[in-house]
Protein backbone atom coordinates (compact mmCIF):
# COMPACT_ATOMS: atom_id res chain seq x y z
CA UNK A 1 0.00 0.00 0.00
CA UNK A 2 2.81 2.39 0.77
CA UNK A 3 3.66 3.13 -2.86
CA UNK A 4 0.01 3.59 -3.78
CA UNK A 5 -0.54 5.93 -0.89
CA UNK A 6 2.75 7.65 -1.73
CA UNK A 7 1.32 8.43 -5.15
CA UNK A 8 -1.97 9.62 -3.69
CA UNK A 9 -0.23 11.83 -1.14
CA UNK A 10 1.81 13.37 -3.92
CA UNK A 11 -1.37 14.16 -5.82
CA UNK A 12 -2.84 15.88 -2.80
CA UNK A 13 0.40 17.59 -1.84
CA UNK A 14 1.09 18.87 -5.34
CA UNK A 15 -2.50 19.98 -5.84
CA UNK A 16 -2.62 22.02 -2.64
CA UNK A 17 0.90 23.37 -3.20
CA UNK A 18 0.24 24.57 -6.73
CA UNK A 19 -3.09 26.14 -5.84
CA UNK A 20 -1.46 27.85 -2.87
CA UNK A 21 1.19 29.20 -5.23
CA UNK A 22 -1.40 30.59 -7.62
CA UNK A 23 -3.34 32.25 -4.81
CA UNK A 24 -0.18 33.72 -3.34
CA UNK A 25 0.39 35.51 -6.65
CA UNK A 26 -2.52 37.75 -5.61
CA UNK A 27 -0.84 38.85 -2.38
CA UNK A 28 -0.49 42.61 -2.53
CA UNK A 29 -2.55 42.82 -5.72
CA UNK A 30 -6.09 41.94 -4.61
CA UNK A 31 -9.15 44.03 -5.50
CA UNK A 32 -9.44 45.27 -1.93
CA UNK A 33 -7.53 44.86 1.27
CA UNK A 34 -9.98 42.43 2.86
CA UNK A 35 -9.79 40.20 -0.21
CA UNK A 36 -6.04 40.39 -0.18
CA UNK A 37 -5.99 39.19 3.41
CA UNK A 38 -8.50 36.43 2.85
CA UNK A 39 -6.82 35.16 -0.30
CA UNK A 40 -3.45 35.05 1.43
CA UNK A 41 -5.07 33.21 4.29
CA UNK A 42 -6.37 30.50 1.98
CA UNK A 43 -2.96 30.29 0.33
CA UNK A 44 -1.39 29.77 3.75
CA UNK A 45 -3.86 27.06 4.72
CA UNK A 46 -3.25 25.20 1.48
CA UNK A 47 0.48 25.53 1.89
CA UNK A 48 0.24 24.02 5.36
CA UNK A 49 -1.78 21.14 3.96
CA UNK A 50 0.70 20.66 1.14
CA UNK A 51 3.49 20.35 3.68
CA UNK A 52 1.63 17.64 5.59
CA UNK A 53 0.87 15.66 2.43
CA UNK A 54 4.37 15.98 1.03
CA UNK A 55 5.94 15.03 4.33
CA UNK A 56 3.71 11.97 4.45
CA UNK A 57 4.60 11.19 0.84
CA UNK A 58 8.30 11.42 1.65
CA UNK A 59 7.91 9.01 4.56
CA UNK A 60 5.90 6.52 2.52
CA UNK A 61 8.34 6.63 -0.35
CA UNK A 62 11.16 5.69 1.97
CA UNK A 63 13.77 7.44 -0.13
CA UNK A 64 14.53 10.14 2.45
CA UNK A 65 13.02 12.94 0.43
CA UNK A 66 11.57 15.69 2.60
CA UNK A 67 8.87 18.19 1.69
CA UNK A 68 11.37 20.57 0.11
CA UNK A 69 13.07 17.97 -2.01
CA UNK A 70 9.70 16.88 -3.29
CA UNK A 71 8.49 20.42 -3.91
CA UNK A 72 11.63 21.95 -5.34
CA UNK A 73 13.46 19.19 -7.11
CA UNK A 74 10.85 17.61 -9.34
CA UNK A 75 10.24 18.94 -12.84
CA UNK A 76 6.76 19.31 -14.34
CA UNK A 77 6.44 15.73 -15.68
CA UNK A 78 7.00 14.48 -12.12
CA UNK A 79 4.30 16.72 -10.65
CA UNK A 80 1.00 15.00 -9.86
CA UNK A 81 -1.44 17.86 -9.30
CA UNK A 82 -4.80 18.13 -11.00
CA UNK A 83 -4.79 20.47 -13.98
CA UNK A 84 -7.48 22.81 -12.65
CA UNK A 85 -5.20 24.33 -10.03
CA UNK A 86 -2.21 25.12 -12.23
CA UNK A 87 -4.03 27.40 -14.66
CA UNK A 88 -3.07 31.07 -14.75
CA UNK A 89 -5.06 33.21 -12.35
CA UNK A 90 -6.73 35.32 -15.03
CA UNK A 91 -8.83 38.10 -13.52
CA UNK A 92 -10.21 37.89 -10.00
CA UNK A 93 -13.38 36.21 -11.23
CA UNK A 94 -11.40 33.41 -12.86
CA UNK A 95 -9.54 32.87 -9.61
CA UNK A 96 -12.78 32.80 -7.61
CA UNK A 97 -14.56 30.47 -10.03
CA UNK A 98 -11.66 28.04 -9.93
CA UNK A 99 -11.56 28.25 -6.16
CA UNK A 100 -15.28 27.67 -5.79
CA UNK A 101 -15.24 24.60 -8.03
CA UNK A 102 -12.14 23.26 -6.31
CA UNK A 103 -13.23 23.96 -2.73
CA UNK A 104 -16.52 22.12 -3.21
CA UNK A 105 -14.64 19.03 -4.37
CA UNK A 106 -11.92 19.42 -1.76
CA UNK A 107 -14.44 19.62 1.07
CA UNK A 108 -16.32 16.52 -0.04
CA UNK A 109 -13.11 14.60 -0.51
CA UNK A 110 -11.81 15.57 2.93
CA UNK A 111 -15.09 14.45 4.47
CA UNK A 112 -14.38 11.04 3.04
CA UNK A 113 -10.73 11.12 4.07
CA UNK A 114 -11.65 11.97 7.67
CA UNK A 115 -12.90 8.41 8.07
CA UNK A 116 -9.85 6.91 6.38
CA UNK A 117 -8.57 3.64 7.76
CA UNK A 118 -5.11 5.18 7.54
CA UNK A 119 -4.53 7.25 10.63
CA UNK A 120 -2.09 9.66 8.96
CA UNK A 121 -4.55 10.41 6.19
CA UNK A 122 -7.39 10.83 8.65
CA UNK A 123 -5.31 13.19 10.76
CA UNK A 124 -4.39 15.39 7.81
CA UNK A 125 -7.99 15.41 6.64
CA UNK A 126 -9.32 16.38 10.04
CA UNK A 127 -6.93 19.24 10.34
CA UNK A 128 -7.61 20.37 6.78
CA UNK A 129 -11.39 20.13 6.73
CA UNK A 130 -11.83 22.92 9.27
CA UNK A 131 -9.88 25.24 7.01
CA UNK A 132 -11.49 24.03 3.82
CA UNK A 133 -14.98 24.40 5.18
CA UNK A 134 -14.16 28.09 5.58
CA UNK A 135 -12.63 28.21 2.08
CA UNK A 136 -15.76 26.71 0.57
CA UNK A 137 -18.08 29.08 2.41
CA UNK A 138 -15.99 32.04 1.38
CA UNK A 139 -15.62 31.17 -2.29
CA UNK A 140 -19.33 30.34 -2.57
CA UNK A 141 -20.19 33.64 -0.94
CA UNK A 142 -17.99 35.63 -3.30
CA UNK A 143 -19.18 33.70 -6.31
CA UNK A 144 -22.76 34.59 -5.40
CA UNK A 145 -21.97 38.25 -4.82
CA UNK A 146 -20.06 38.56 -8.09
CA UNK A 147 -22.53 36.49 -10.10
CA UNK A 148 -25.47 38.48 -8.75
CA UNK A 149 -23.63 41.83 -8.70
CA UNK A 150 -23.47 44.06 -11.77
CA UNK A 151 -24.08 43.11 -15.39
CA UNK A 152 -20.34 43.22 -15.93
CA UNK A 153 -19.52 41.00 -12.97
CA UNK A 154 -22.24 38.57 -13.98
CA UNK A 155 -20.81 38.24 -17.48
CA UNK A 156 -17.28 37.85 -16.17
CA UNK A 157 -18.29 35.15 -13.72
CA UNK A 158 -20.28 33.20 -16.28
CA UNK A 159 -17.26 33.27 -18.57
CA UNK A 160 -14.98 32.22 -15.72
CA UNK A 161 -17.16 29.27 -14.73
CA UNK A 162 -17.44 28.15 -18.35
CA UNK A 163 -13.72 28.44 -18.78
CA UNK A 164 -12.79 26.37 -15.71
CA UNK A 165 -15.52 23.79 -16.24
CA UNK A 166 -13.67 21.48 -18.62
CA UNK A 167 -10.94 20.93 -16.01
CA UNK A 168 -13.36 19.78 -13.28
CA UNK A 169 -14.07 16.30 -14.54
CA UNK A 170 -10.52 15.15 -13.86
CA UNK A 171 -11.12 15.52 -10.11
CA UNK A 172 -13.68 12.72 -10.18
CA UNK A 173 -11.82 10.11 -12.21
CA UNK A 174 -10.81 6.93 -10.43
CA UNK A 175 -7.81 4.90 -11.47
CA UNK A 176 -5.71 2.05 -10.11
CA UNK A 177 -4.44 4.26 -7.32
CA UNK A 178 -7.74 5.56 -6.01
CA UNK A 179 -9.51 2.25 -6.52
CA UNK A 180 -6.86 0.29 -4.64
CA UNK A 181 -6.98 2.76 -1.77
CA UNK A 182 -10.76 2.82 -1.80
CA UNK A 183 -10.75 -0.96 -1.51
CA UNK A 184 -8.78 -0.60 1.70
CA UNK A 185 -10.99 2.14 3.06
CA UNK A 186 -8.21 4.69 2.81
CA UNK A 187 -9.92 7.09 0.40
CA UNK A 188 -13.43 7.43 -1.00
CA UNK A 189 -13.95 6.62 -4.67
CA UNK A 190 -13.57 9.95 -6.42
CA UNK A 191 -16.54 9.16 -8.62
CA UNK A 192 -18.71 9.02 -5.52
CA UNK A 193 -18.14 12.74 -4.99
CA UNK A 194 -19.52 13.73 -8.38
CA UNK A 195 -23.22 13.82 -7.59
CA UNK A 196 -22.96 15.70 -4.29
CA UNK A 197 -20.53 18.11 -5.94
CA UNK A 198 -22.85 18.69 -8.85
CA UNK A 199 -25.80 19.29 -6.52
CA UNK A 200 -23.88 21.82 -4.48
CA UNK A 201 -22.51 23.56 -7.54
CA UNK A 202 -25.93 23.68 -9.18
CA UNK A 203 -27.50 25.29 -6.11
CA UNK A 204 -24.78 27.85 -5.64
CA UNK A 205 -24.63 28.79 -9.31
CA UNK A 206 -28.40 29.24 -9.25
CA UNK A 207 -28.10 31.54 -6.26
CA UNK A 208 -25.39 33.40 -8.16
CA UNK A 209 -27.85 33.73 -11.07
CA UNK A 210 -25.34 31.87 -13.24
CA UNK A 211 -26.01 29.09 -15.72
CA UNK A 212 -24.43 25.77 -14.97
CA UNK A 213 -22.51 24.39 -17.97
CA UNK A 214 -23.44 20.97 -19.34
CA UNK A 215 -22.25 18.39 -16.79
CA UNK A 216 -21.04 16.12 -19.59
CA UNK A 217 -18.69 18.86 -20.77
CA UNK A 218 -16.85 18.75 -17.45
CA UNK A 219 -15.00 15.60 -18.48
CA UNK A 220 -12.86 15.52 -21.56
CA UNK A 221 -9.81 13.35 -22.13
CA UNK A 222 -7.91 16.36 -23.47
CA UNK A 223 -8.11 17.96 -20.04
CA UNK A 224 -6.93 15.12 -17.87
CA UNK A 225 -3.55 13.65 -17.11
CA UNK A 226 -2.23 15.92 -14.38
CA UNK A 227 -1.97 13.02 -11.94
CA UNK A 228 0.23 11.22 -14.47
CA UNK A 229 2.43 14.24 -15.08
CA UNK A 230 0.77 15.41 -18.31
CA UNK A 231 0.15 19.06 -17.51
CA UNK A 232 -0.77 22.25 -19.28
CA UNK A 233 1.81 24.69 -20.62
CA UNK A 234 1.31 26.85 -17.53
CA UNK A 235 3.01 24.55 -15.01
CA UNK A 236 6.55 24.73 -16.37
CA UNK A 237 6.71 28.49 -15.92
CA UNK A 238 5.31 28.24 -12.41
CA UNK A 239 7.92 25.68 -11.38
CA UNK A 240 10.79 27.57 -13.02
CA UNK A 241 9.94 30.52 -10.81
CA UNK A 242 9.22 28.51 -7.66
CA UNK A 243 12.32 26.34 -7.88
CA UNK A 244 14.88 28.88 -9.02
CA UNK A 245 16.72 29.30 -5.72
CA UNK A 246 16.87 25.63 -4.80
CA UNK A 247 18.03 24.78 -8.31
CA UNK A 248 20.58 27.59 -8.47
CA UNK A 249 22.25 26.87 -5.14
CA UNK A 250 22.23 23.10 -4.98
CA UNK A 251 22.69 21.68 -1.51
CA UNK A 252 22.37 25.02 0.27
CA UNK A 253 20.06 25.14 3.25
CA UNK A 254 17.84 28.12 3.84
Amino acid at each position, binding site marked *: MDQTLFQYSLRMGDTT*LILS*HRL*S*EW*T*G*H*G*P*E*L*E*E*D*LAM*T*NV*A*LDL*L*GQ*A*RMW*LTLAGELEGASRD*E*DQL*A*YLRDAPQYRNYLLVERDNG*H*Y*GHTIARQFLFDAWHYLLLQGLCTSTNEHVAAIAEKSIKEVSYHARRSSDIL*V*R*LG*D*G*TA*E*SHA*RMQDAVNDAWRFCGELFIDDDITLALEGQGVVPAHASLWQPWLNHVALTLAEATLTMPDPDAAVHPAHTGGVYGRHTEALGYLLA*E*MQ*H*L*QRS*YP*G*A*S*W
Partner: protein
Amino acid sequence: TGDEQAFQQRIDEGIRIEPKDWMPEPYRKTLIRQISQHAHSEIVGMLPEGNWITRAPTLKRKAILLAKVQDEAGHGLYLYSAAETLGVSRDELVGDLHSGKAKYSSIFNYPTLTWADIGMIGWLVDGSAIINQIPLCRCSYGPYARAMVRVCKEESFHQRQGYDLLIQMCLHGTQAQKDMCQEALNRWWWPALMMFGPSDADSPNSAQSMQWRIKLFSNDELRQKMVDQTVPQAEYLGLKVPDPDLKWNKDQGHYDFGEIDWDEFYAVIKGNGPCNRERLAARVNAHKEGQWVREAFSAYANKHESEQAVA
Protein backbone atom coordinates in the same frame (compact mmCIF):
# COMPACT_ATOMS: atom_id res chain seq x y z
CA THR B 1 -8.13 79.15 23.87
CA GLY B 2 -9.45 77.40 26.91
CA ASP B 3 -10.19 74.21 24.95
CA GLU B 4 -6.66 74.08 23.74
CA GLN B 5 -5.22 74.59 27.17
CA ALA B 6 -7.41 71.88 28.64
CA PHE B 7 -6.46 69.58 25.77
CA GLN B 8 -2.75 70.14 26.29
CA GLN B 9 -3.17 69.66 30.01
CA ARG B 10 -4.78 66.26 29.51
CA ILE B 11 -1.93 65.29 27.27
CA ASP B 12 0.63 66.47 29.77
CA GLU B 13 -1.09 64.41 32.43
CA GLY B 14 -0.85 61.37 30.22
CA ILE B 15 -4.60 61.03 29.66
CA ARG B 16 -5.45 59.48 26.29
CA ILE B 17 -7.40 61.48 23.73
CA GLU B 18 -10.30 59.49 22.31
CA PRO B 19 -12.24 60.04 19.05
CA LYS B 20 -15.21 61.79 20.67
CA ASP B 21 -12.99 64.18 22.62
CA TRP B 22 -12.44 67.72 21.46
CA MET B 23 -9.11 68.19 19.71
CA PRO B 24 -7.42 71.05 17.88
CA GLU B 25 -7.73 70.85 14.12
CA PRO B 26 -3.93 70.78 13.52
CA TYR B 27 -3.64 67.85 15.95
CA ARG B 28 -6.33 65.98 14.02
CA LYS B 29 -4.73 66.80 10.67
CA THR B 30 -1.24 65.86 11.78
CA LEU B 31 -2.49 62.58 13.18
CA ILE B 32 -4.41 61.74 10.03
CA ARG B 33 -1.30 62.38 8.00
CA GLN B 34 0.91 60.35 10.30
CA ILE B 35 -1.43 57.39 10.75
CA SER B 36 -2.38 57.19 7.10
CA GLN B 37 1.26 57.37 6.02
CA HIS B 38 1.88 54.53 8.36
CA ALA B 39 -1.06 52.58 6.93
CA HIS B 40 0.08 53.23 3.36
CA SER B 41 3.57 52.04 4.32
CA GLU B 42 2.18 48.73 5.48
CA ILE B 43 0.29 48.28 2.21
CA VAL B 44 3.07 49.36 -0.12
CA GLY B 45 5.46 47.38 2.09
CA MET B 46 3.68 44.20 1.01
CA LEU B 47 5.12 44.61 -2.47
CA PRO B 48 8.89 44.25 -2.01
CA GLU B 49 8.42 41.21 0.22
CA GLY B 50 5.57 39.84 -1.87
CA ASN B 51 8.07 39.84 -4.72
CA TRP B 52 9.73 36.75 -3.16
CA ILE B 53 6.71 34.74 -2.01
CA THR B 54 6.55 32.66 -5.17
CA ARG B 55 10.33 32.15 -5.05
CA ALA B 56 10.88 31.40 -1.36
CA PRO B 57 13.50 28.66 -1.13
CA THR B 58 11.70 26.29 1.27
CA LEU B 59 8.08 25.66 2.10
CA LYS B 60 8.65 26.70 5.70
CA ARG B 61 10.20 30.02 4.67
CA LYS B 62 7.38 30.52 2.19
CA ALA B 63 4.80 30.02 4.94
CA ILE B 64 6.62 32.47 7.22
CA LEU B 65 6.82 35.07 4.48
CA LEU B 66 3.20 34.67 3.41
CA ALA B 67 2.06 35.03 7.02
CA LYS B 68 4.22 38.07 7.45
CA VAL B 69 2.90 39.84 4.39
CA GLN B 70 -0.60 38.95 5.51
CA ASP B 71 0.13 40.58 8.88
CA GLU B 72 1.11 43.73 7.04
CA ALA B 73 -2.24 43.81 5.29
CA GLY B 74 -3.78 43.44 8.74
CA HIS B 75 -1.72 46.31 10.10
CA GLY B 76 -2.88 48.40 7.19
CA LEU B 77 -6.46 47.60 8.10
CA TYR B 78 -6.14 48.57 11.81
CA LEU B 79 -4.29 51.72 10.92
CA TYR B 80 -6.83 52.81 8.33
CA SER B 81 -9.48 52.17 10.98
CA ALA B 82 -7.56 54.26 13.50
CA ALA B 83 -7.36 57.06 10.94
CA GLU B 84 -11.08 56.74 10.22
CA THR B 85 -11.84 57.57 13.88
CA LEU B 86 -10.55 61.03 13.01
CA GLY B 87 -13.28 61.56 10.44
CA VAL B 88 -11.74 60.58 7.12
CA SER B 89 -12.70 57.59 5.00
CA ARG B 90 -10.37 54.87 3.82
CA ASP B 91 -11.38 55.68 0.24
CA GLU B 92 -10.15 59.26 0.65
CA LEU B 93 -6.88 58.11 2.16
CA VAL B 94 -6.30 55.49 -0.54
CA GLY B 95 -7.19 58.07 -3.17
CA ASP B 96 -4.47 60.34 -1.77
CA LEU B 97 -1.97 57.49 -1.94
CA HIS B 98 -2.82 56.71 -5.53
CA SER B 99 -2.72 60.35 -6.65
CA GLY B 100 0.73 60.72 -5.13
CA LYS B 101 -0.51 63.29 -2.59
CA ALA B 102 0.10 61.03 0.40
CA LYS B 103 3.50 59.56 1.22
CA TYR B 104 4.59 56.19 2.48
CA SER B 105 7.88 55.07 3.97
CA SER B 106 10.61 55.57 1.37
CA ILE B 107 12.29 52.33 2.31
CA PHE B 108 9.75 50.44 0.22
CA ASN B 109 11.01 52.19 -2.89
CA TYR B 110 14.10 50.01 -2.77
CA PRO B 111 14.01 46.72 -4.68
CA THR B 112 14.27 43.20 -3.28
CA LEU B 113 16.87 41.62 -5.52
CA THR B 114 17.83 38.44 -3.69
CA TRP B 115 16.39 36.22 -0.99
CA ALA B 116 18.79 37.83 1.50
CA ASP B 117 16.80 41.03 1.07
CA ILE B 118 13.87 39.32 2.79
CA GLY B 119 16.11 38.79 5.79
CA MET B 120 17.33 42.38 5.65
CA ILE B 121 13.80 43.75 5.59
CA GLY B 122 12.92 41.73 8.67
CA TRP B 123 16.07 42.54 10.55
CA LEU B 124 16.75 46.16 9.58
CA VAL B 125 13.49 47.57 8.28
CA ASP B 126 11.19 45.96 10.84
CA GLY B 127 13.88 46.58 13.42
CA SER B 128 13.87 50.30 12.66
CA ALA B 129 10.10 50.34 12.48
CA ILE B 130 9.86 48.87 15.95
CA ILE B 131 12.25 51.44 17.37
CA ASN B 132 10.10 54.12 15.78
CA GLN B 133 6.84 52.60 16.90
CA ILE B 134 7.37 51.30 20.42
CA PRO B 135 7.19 54.82 21.88
CA LEU B 136 3.97 55.37 19.92
CA CYS B 137 2.28 52.69 22.01
CA ARG B 138 2.26 55.45 24.65
CA CYS B 139 1.20 58.26 22.30
CA SER B 140 -1.61 60.60 23.18
CA TYR B 141 -4.24 59.39 20.72
CA GLY B 142 -5.97 56.27 22.04
CA PRO B 143 -6.88 54.39 18.84
CA TYR B 144 -3.40 54.96 17.41
CA ALA B 145 -1.68 53.88 20.62
CA ARG B 146 -3.75 50.69 20.78
CA ALA B 147 -3.12 49.87 17.12
CA MET B 148 0.59 50.34 17.76
CA VAL B 149 0.58 47.83 20.62
CA ARG B 150 -0.72 45.13 18.32
CA VAL B 151 1.51 46.16 15.42
CA CYS B 152 4.67 46.23 17.54
CA LYS B 153 4.03 42.77 18.93
CA GLU B 154 3.81 41.32 15.44
CA GLU B 155 6.68 43.39 14.10
CA SER B 156 9.02 42.15 16.75
CA PHE B 157 8.08 38.60 15.79
CA HIS B 158 8.83 39.48 12.16
CA GLN B 159 12.14 40.96 13.09
CA ARG B 160 13.22 37.78 14.86
CA GLN B 161 12.18 35.75 11.83
CA GLY B 162 14.23 37.99 9.56
CA TYR B 163 17.25 37.67 11.78
CA ASP B 164 16.76 33.91 11.99
CA LEU B 165 16.75 33.75 8.18
CA LEU B 166 20.08 35.59 8.15
CA ILE B 167 21.59 33.42 10.87
CA GLN B 168 20.78 30.41 8.73
CA MET B 169 22.43 31.95 5.67
CA CYS B 170 25.40 33.61 7.37
CA LEU B 171 26.31 31.07 10.03
CA HIS B 172 25.18 27.83 8.43
CA GLY B 173 25.24 28.77 4.77
CA THR B 174 27.59 28.41 1.84
CA GLN B 175 29.99 31.14 0.81
CA ALA B 176 27.56 32.17 -1.94
CA GLN B 177 24.84 32.64 0.68
CA LYS B 178 27.11 34.71 2.90
CA ASP B 179 28.11 36.87 -0.06
CA MET B 180 24.45 37.34 -0.89
CA CYS B 181 23.83 38.61 2.65
CA GLN B 182 26.77 40.99 2.61
CA GLU B 183 25.69 42.40 -0.73
CA ALA B 184 22.18 42.87 0.61
CA LEU B 185 23.44 44.61 3.75
CA ASN B 186 25.45 46.95 1.55
CA ARG B 187 22.25 48.00 -0.18
CA TRP B 188 19.92 48.16 2.84
CA TRP B 189 22.06 49.67 5.60
CA TRP B 190 21.85 53.32 4.66
CA PRO B 191 18.22 53.32 3.55
CA ALA B 192 17.37 51.70 6.91
CA LEU B 193 19.10 54.56 8.74
CA MET B 194 17.19 57.03 6.60
CA MET B 195 13.92 55.56 7.83
CA PHE B 196 14.14 57.74 10.94
CA GLY B 197 13.80 60.86 8.85
CA PRO B 198 15.94 63.97 8.55
CA SER B 199 18.27 65.14 11.27
CA ASP B 200 16.61 66.97 14.11
CA ALA B 201 17.96 70.27 12.79
CA ASP B 202 16.00 69.71 9.56
CA SER B 203 12.83 68.42 11.16
CA PRO B 204 10.80 71.57 11.84
CA ASN B 205 7.49 70.01 12.88
CA SER B 206 8.98 67.77 15.49
CA ALA B 207 8.59 70.18 18.41
CA GLN B 208 4.83 70.51 18.03
CA SER B 209 4.40 66.76 17.58
CA MET B 210 6.43 66.15 20.69
CA GLN B 211 4.33 68.57 22.64
CA TRP B 212 1.25 66.64 21.49
CA ARG B 213 2.96 63.37 22.38
CA ILE B 214 2.48 61.88 18.96
CA LYS B 215 6.23 61.88 18.61
CA LEU B 216 8.21 60.94 21.70
CA PHE B 217 11.85 60.90 20.71
CA SER B 218 13.84 62.83 18.15
CA ASN B 219 14.82 61.28 14.84
CA ASP B 220 18.49 61.31 15.73
CA GLU B 221 17.93 59.67 19.10
CA LEU B 222 16.01 56.83 17.53
CA ARG B 223 18.55 56.44 14.74
CA GLN B 224 21.36 56.20 17.29
CA LYS B 225 19.41 53.55 19.15
CA MET B 226 19.04 51.55 15.96
CA VAL B 227 22.76 51.73 15.19
CA ASP B 228 23.73 50.76 18.70
CA GLN B 229 21.37 47.82 18.67
CA THR B 230 22.18 46.61 15.17
CA VAL B 231 25.96 46.78 14.89
CA PRO B 232 26.59 43.94 17.36
CA GLN B 233 23.96 41.86 15.57
CA ALA B 234 25.80 42.42 12.29
CA GLU B 235 29.03 41.34 13.96
CA TYR B 236 27.36 38.17 15.20
CA LEU B 237 26.33 37.42 11.63
CA GLY B 238 29.88 38.05 10.43
CA LEU B 239 28.71 40.88 8.18
CA LYS B 240 30.51 44.15 7.66
CA VAL B 241 28.45 47.32 8.03
CA PRO B 242 29.20 49.41 4.92
CA ASP B 243 30.32 52.50 6.80
CA PRO B 244 34.05 53.26 7.04
CA ASP B 245 33.36 55.84 9.76
CA LEU B 246 31.56 53.44 12.03
CA LYS B 247 33.32 52.96 15.35
CA TRP B 248 32.59 52.51 19.03
CA ASN B 249 32.83 55.72 21.02
CA LYS B 250 33.82 54.64 24.50
CA ASP B 251 33.22 58.05 26.04
CA GLN B 252 29.71 58.39 24.71
CA GLY B 253 28.81 54.73 25.06
CA HIS B 254 27.52 54.84 21.48
CA TYR B 255 28.63 54.02 17.99
CA ASP B 256 29.74 56.97 15.89
CA PHE B 257 28.67 56.60 12.29
CA GLY B 258 29.18 58.33 8.96
CA GLU B 259 27.13 61.00 7.31
CA ILE B 260 23.92 59.92 5.62
CA ASP B 261 23.56 60.78 1.93
CA TRP B 262 20.69 63.22 2.32
CA ASP B 263 20.60 63.87 -1.40
CA GLU B 264 19.54 60.29 -1.87
CA PHE B 265 17.02 60.61 0.94
CA TYR B 266 15.32 63.62 -0.62
CA ALA B 267 15.52 62.19 -4.13
CA VAL B 268 13.61 59.07 -3.05
CA ILE B 269 11.03 61.16 -1.20
CA LYS B 270 10.54 63.27 -4.32
CA GLY B 271 9.79 60.16 -6.36
CA ASN B 272 13.22 59.34 -7.75
CA GLY B 273 13.98 56.17 -5.83
CA PRO B 274 14.66 52.93 -7.63
CA CYS B 275 11.06 51.67 -7.48
CA ASN B 276 8.77 54.62 -6.73
CA ARG B 277 6.98 54.36 -10.05
CA GLU B 278 6.70 50.59 -9.91
CA ARG B 279 5.29 50.57 -6.38
CA LEU B 280 2.66 53.19 -7.02
CA ALA B 281 1.78 51.64 -10.38
CA ALA B 282 1.29 48.25 -8.72
CA ARG B 283 -1.13 49.72 -6.17
CA VAL B 284 -3.00 51.80 -8.71
CA ASN B 285 -3.23 48.85 -11.05
CA ALA B 286 -4.57 46.51 -8.36
CA HIS B 287 -7.19 49.11 -7.49
CA LYS B 288 -8.18 49.62 -11.11
CA GLU B 289 -8.33 45.92 -11.92
CA GLY B 290 -10.40 45.38 -8.79
CA GLN B 291 -12.94 48.06 -9.55
CA TRP B 292 -15.49 45.71 -11.09
CA VAL B 293 -15.22 43.48 -8.03
CA ARG B 294 -15.87 46.30 -5.58
CA GLU B 295 -18.72 47.58 -7.73
CA ALA B 296 -20.26 44.13 -7.83
CA PHE B 297 -19.99 43.78 -4.07
CA SER B 298 -21.86 47.02 -3.50
CA ALA B 299 -24.42 46.27 -6.18
CA TYR B 300 -25.11 42.94 -4.50
CA ALA B 301 -25.33 44.53 -1.08
CA ASN B 302 -27.74 47.20 -2.29
CA LYS B 303 -29.90 44.69 -4.11
CA HIS B 304 -30.23 42.41 -1.14
CA GLU B 305 -30.62 45.18 1.38
CA SER B 306 -33.62 46.50 -0.52
CA GLU B 307 -35.02 42.96 -0.88
CA GLN B 308 -34.84 42.61 2.87
CA ALA B 309 -36.46 45.99 3.33
CA VAL B 310 -39.34 44.90 1.08
CA ALA B 311 -39.76 41.56 2.84
